[in-house]
């Protein structure tokens, strides 16, 4: 087990190195001159000398390979540099955005677990019932709606309509920004915070909840056919015990994996939700920086996102072996 974990950790290194290096070189093929951007924007007329000074300061005149080497020797010591645009240190930006992202991600995952698993389970137990058919259609629809459209629909239903119809103040939800940013125990919203949190959390959770429900249903249907389920029924266990103790435990495995991977994904890839609700998270910051060619921010934040994704995946694989003793990690691989 330990040797497996060490090997996986070592594999993360080249993956992260190659991913970041690819982005690094991709950026130097993008049209436009980063020095010009630093000097004050793409279209403004710029005093002579400003571009040269900016290029000098950030080493943008060096040969590409030298810049590449510099970038990695700085990154290895966790010196992520500063934003071309705002001159803020990337570590500061990271600290602020990552916290907002993780809080939103935690709530999306909570929704995924609390809604996805029971819905999928019920759907499997009552196969072909009306509620099962409804679940099939609703989960398919949830993954077919563009995330931002769902966000707008929710905004319209819970923020625009309540205003028009004069709902009481407490029932109106907020649609923009992070709000008072007040939390207890890191992720529990306090005071007015929940009104800012709830719509983005639902929006972010929609697609993964639908997937989790579908996977739970499929997995449970498969388990229902297993011999040990027949045995459990045959020895006269209550149907509830059969489902929960024998069925659910085994059917949960692939779903747990999915949810784990989702957590790794939603931290950095919530771009659309964050943009729709102006939630100041990592994904939208990266996307903005990409369009503005703010290279240090893109590379610094992506580094963290990629690392988090890889480590969480590793954690999921390890916990998988812990849940299911039949799985022996690192042995008998093809």
């Amino acid at each position, binding site marked *: 087990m330990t040797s497996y974990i060490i090997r996986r950790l070592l594999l993360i290194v080249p993956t992260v190195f190659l991913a970041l290096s690819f982005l690094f070189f991709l950026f130097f093929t993008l049209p436009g001159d980063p020095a010009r951007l630093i000097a004050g924007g793409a279209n403004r007329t710029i005093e002579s000398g400003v571009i040269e000074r900016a290029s000098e300061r950030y080493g943008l005149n060096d040969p590409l390979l030298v810049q590449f080497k510099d970038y990695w020797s700085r990154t290895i010591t966790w010196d992520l540099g500063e934003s071309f645009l705002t001159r803020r240190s990337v570590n500061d930006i990271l600290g602020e955005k990552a916290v907002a992202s993780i809080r939103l991600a935690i709530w999306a995952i909570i929704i995924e677990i609390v809604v996805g698993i029971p819905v999928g389970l019920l759907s499997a137990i009552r196969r072909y019932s009306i509620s099962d058919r409804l679940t099939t259609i609703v989960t398919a629809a949830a993954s077919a709606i563009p995330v931002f459209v769902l966000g707008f629909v929710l905004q319209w239903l819970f923020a625009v309509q309540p205003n028009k119809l004069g709902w009481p103040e407490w029932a109106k939800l907020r649609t923009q920004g992070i709000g008072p940013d007040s939390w207890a125990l890191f992720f529990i919203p306090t005071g007015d915070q929940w009104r800012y949190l709830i719509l983005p959390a639902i929006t972010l959770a929609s697609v993964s909840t639908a997937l989790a429900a579908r996977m739970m249903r499929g997995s449970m249907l498969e388990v229902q056919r297993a011999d040990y389920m027949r045995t459990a029924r045959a020895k006269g266990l209550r149907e509830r015990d059969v489902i929960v103790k024998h069925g659910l435990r085994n059917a949960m495995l692939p779903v747990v994996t999915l949810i784990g991977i989702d957590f790794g994904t939603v931290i950095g890839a919530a771009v659309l939700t964050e943009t729709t609700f102006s939630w100041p998270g990592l994904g939208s910051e990266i*996307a903005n920086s990409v369009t503005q060619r703010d290279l240090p921010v893109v590379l610094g934040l992506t580094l963290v996102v990629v690392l988090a994704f890889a480590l969480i995946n590793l954690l999921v694989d390890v916990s998988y072996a812990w849940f299911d003793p039949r799985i022996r990690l690192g042995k008998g691989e093809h």
Partner: protein
Amino acid sequence: MTLVDPGTPTTATGVPEVASAPEEIGEARPLRADVWRRFKRNRLAMVGLGFLIFLGLVAIFAPLIAPYSITERASGQFRQPPSADHWFGTDAIGRDMFSRIVYGARVSLRIGFAATAISVIIGLLFGALAGFFSGVTDTVITRVIDVFLAIPYIVLAVAIASVFGRSENAIIIVLGVTGWLAIARIVRASFLSLRRLEYVEAATALGFSRTRIMFRHILPNALQPIIVIGTITVGYVILAEAALSFLGVGPQEPTPAWGLMVAAGKGSLTNAPHLLFFPAGAIVLTVLAFVFVGDGLRDALDPKLK
């Protein structure tokens, strides 16, 4: 919905006995007829197929269906709600939404199919290589796929979109070169299992070239999952196009792309929600149709799965 009664116990390996239902035993039928017979039973898939045929006809006959052109502006009628003149209302500069959505079917289907074709070709090539030649080739390709999967998809798409620009063809390339990873994995998995079968051994013994074995012998047997994932991918490409438009790196005005219309409609949510809901509805229905048809194909092509 299935040939096998759900209660029928399957063998330990999960493979049901061949011809378990009595109706299966009878005169031989061509595979295609068999697949179609199973596909027909899936109501959602048939509805999806019907919608896609309808959409295809709309795209082909767009000039006959649309009452206005995509750039024609009705003077003074901005953000009008749906009416007899303008079925889906008018947009922020007075253009007829119905006509733009009708023409948008062309754009979406073109982007969807072309980008998927690119993804399938790249994914097929790399997946086949990785699955057929294990060892170094496989390791390298699998690593490359892992690297690209590690980069958040939108970051990759936005970055590549800023290289290629925002013409319709550029969007097709962006979505095509970012969408092949999942397909390559699926193709790799089927090649990996198929190349161990006897008929491949026989073909090797006959001295056929490896290219011929890969594409003439193994590929036809690996086609089923590719057809399924290809169908579903078309839907997701249309979704991705909408996401790129929303982030401002999708197709440009006056292209009547649905995603672009949704992105433009987001500002008028309070006063003119129809600007958002009609193009969004078109996207949702189209994506759903592709997903349902894909699911139906999966069940019809491989009855073992259910």
